[in-house]
């Protein structure tokens, strides 16, 4: 499979802050490429440079065979952006919005109207052509946001959390749309805070943290990085939120503990698969005077992998 996007040693600084530090990755043509990282990891900055919204300080980006330094306009023509924020004009109808953005890519006349209607049909808004965004639900606005980014039939679609704040039905529609876009030949770079979405639709996933690449590969490849880890869920009677910080701190000092996450009545501990690991944890847990109601272990998944590799939860 040919590489459609090649990012080499990308560095982007904002003053003294290095938002992206020597980052390299590539995306194959016709691939859905997931981009994961905690808040402030550098995901949005990377996408911003890739989509020509910001200039890079160092490195090179190649999209569809064009280099960003030499052929920025040609790269712009290839890219469709679906931003995290809904970026539409409130006083224009759905059709007028999509037509306006497609017109910026050189579409005119019947071709423009046809492309706009097709994009709206694609996102399931063909019966809302004349509706203004202020009359739409959150999910419909999200779909219109997508239509505005894909009407000019881009070869590379960059989607930054396109499902934030939508209902389950709209989310399913959006995810199916992304799959269909891939089937039509587009390459998609997708970021999300929802791990299950990324697992569900992405062919490969890159994880970045502090502006650097932590891991990149298929879901199976990433999970294999943490096969020596298992998650232990301990449910207790008392709220661990009350003393959560203290409990986390003590549990983290135990040998073989990789990460600790506390929720209402449950503590999740990622530990190395070694003899006596669980026993030590249970002893320590009972030493806190907290009754154990239930214990559950899980094999590693993307969540485990993310937490282990970055030390943070995705959210």
């Amino acid at each position, binding site marked *: 499979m040919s590489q459609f996007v090649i990012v080499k040693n990308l560095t982007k600084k904002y003053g003294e802050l290095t938002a992206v530090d020597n980052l390299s990755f590539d995306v194959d043509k016709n691939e859905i490429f997931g981009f994961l990282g905690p808040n402030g990891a550098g995901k949005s900055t990377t996408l911003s440079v890739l989509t020509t919204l910001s200039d890079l300080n160092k490195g090179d980006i190649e999209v569809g065979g064009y280099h960003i330094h030499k052929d920025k*306009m040609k790269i712009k023509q290839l*890219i469709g952006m679906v931003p995290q924020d809904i970026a539409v*004009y409130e006083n*224009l109808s759905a059709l*007028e919005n999509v037509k*306006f*953005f497609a017109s910026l*890519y050189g579409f005119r006349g019947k071709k423009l109207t046809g492309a706009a209607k097709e994009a709206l049909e694609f996102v399931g808004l063909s019966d809302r052509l004349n509706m203004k965004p202020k009359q739409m639900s959150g999910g419909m606005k999200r779909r219109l946001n997508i239509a505005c980014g894909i009407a000019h039939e881009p070869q590379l679609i960059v989607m930054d959390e396109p499902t934030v704040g939508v209902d389950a039905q709209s989310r399913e529609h959006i995810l199916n749309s992304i799959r269909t876009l891939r089937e039509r030949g587009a390459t998609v770079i997708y970021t999300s805070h929802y791990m299950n979405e990324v697992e569900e639709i992405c062919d490969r996933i890159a994880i970045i943290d502090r502006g650097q690449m932590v891991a990149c590969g298929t879901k199976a490849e990433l999970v294999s990085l943490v096969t020596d880890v298992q998650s232990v869920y301990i449910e207790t009677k008392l709220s661990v939120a009350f003393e959560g910080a203290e409990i986390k701190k003590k549990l983290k000092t135990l040998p073989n503990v990789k990460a600790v996450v506390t929720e209402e009545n449950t503590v999740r501990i990622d530990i190395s698969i070694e003899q006596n690991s669980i026993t030590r944890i249970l002893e320590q847990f009972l030493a806190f005077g907290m009754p154990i109601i239930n214990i559950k272990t899980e094999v590693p998944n993307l969540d485990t992998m993310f937490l282990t590799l970055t030390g943070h939860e995705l959210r």
Partner: protein
Amino acid sequence: MFNIIIKETKEFIREKSYLFFFIMFPVILVFLLGNLLDETDIAESTIGMVQIDYQIDTQDPFQIAAIDSFVNGNTEQGMISFHKTEDFAQSIQLAGEDEITAAVMFGGTPLQIQVYEGTDRVKNRTVEAVLNGFIQINKTVSAVLKTSPEGLSEFKLEDADYTVDKNLNEKRSMIDYYAVTMVVMISFMSILVGSNAFIGERQNKTINRLIIAPQNRVSMFLQKICGMAPQALLQVAIIMITSVVVFKASYGATVESNLYLFFLFFVITFCMVSLGAIIGLLIKINPFIVIMPVLWIMMFFGGTYSKELDIKGFSEFMPNNIFQRAAFDVAIFGRYEMANSVILICAVTTIVALIVGAFLFNHKEEER
């Protein structure tokens, strides 16, 4: 190019707050201020009889003769009645009670005038103007007497009227004043439209979609500014037509002068839009918060809301005051010099603003 212009026009027409603020509001103000303040205008134009009690406290026969000549000359014209009083204290009291306009004491060498005025502002201005004129002539004659007394023999009093009355064929009312003033006001406030053109894109988050589009940024900036032109034309045209047709206001005396005024207002509006665009690219907060207070102060002290707020040395430097004077020159006196200068300055300012704005937009990075 037309897609951006059409988009900008549609957004303007469909935004109810814009329509109210930039079209309805000034039209309402023309009507309200024009009618409510019309009484003030009548009071000013009809000054009425000015009655002055005076006393002479000097032994200089030349000064006494000069004062008598001045008093008799003015009394003969009928507008001002001078009455020589024996009891000046009582005259001061009468002035305080507005029974007479003022009590005036001529005295001293060189001649000085003490004026005790009543409360009628317009009549007081008349008294001051007349007495200032007299004291200037008196000083001049005294100076000539000292330096070249024989020169006075060349001076002959003639019973001639040196003023020429121009018949304007129509009576100007306050509604005419506000018809012109409100178009200037709205042209001036178009700076908000310009700034909002870019701040609106930022608030809608659509500016990033514009930045990533494969378009020349300078061209895109100019298209957006040109997209404001139909709005500028529309708002000026609607206010002028409504004022004339509905409120029977007058602008210029001829079709040519009206078209010239329309052009003047359009040039000012477009200049303000261009300046607003720079502000919109530089500031990130709501333009109304930043620009409105400045505009209100300028308009308040620039005579937009009332002619009486004029502050000498301050008002005449307010851009809106200059624009208004240029427009009144064309509308009332048929003089084009000042308006030509305004058009030239606005055109140069617009070009500079467009260059600066295009530079800023061309170097604009992502908005988060």
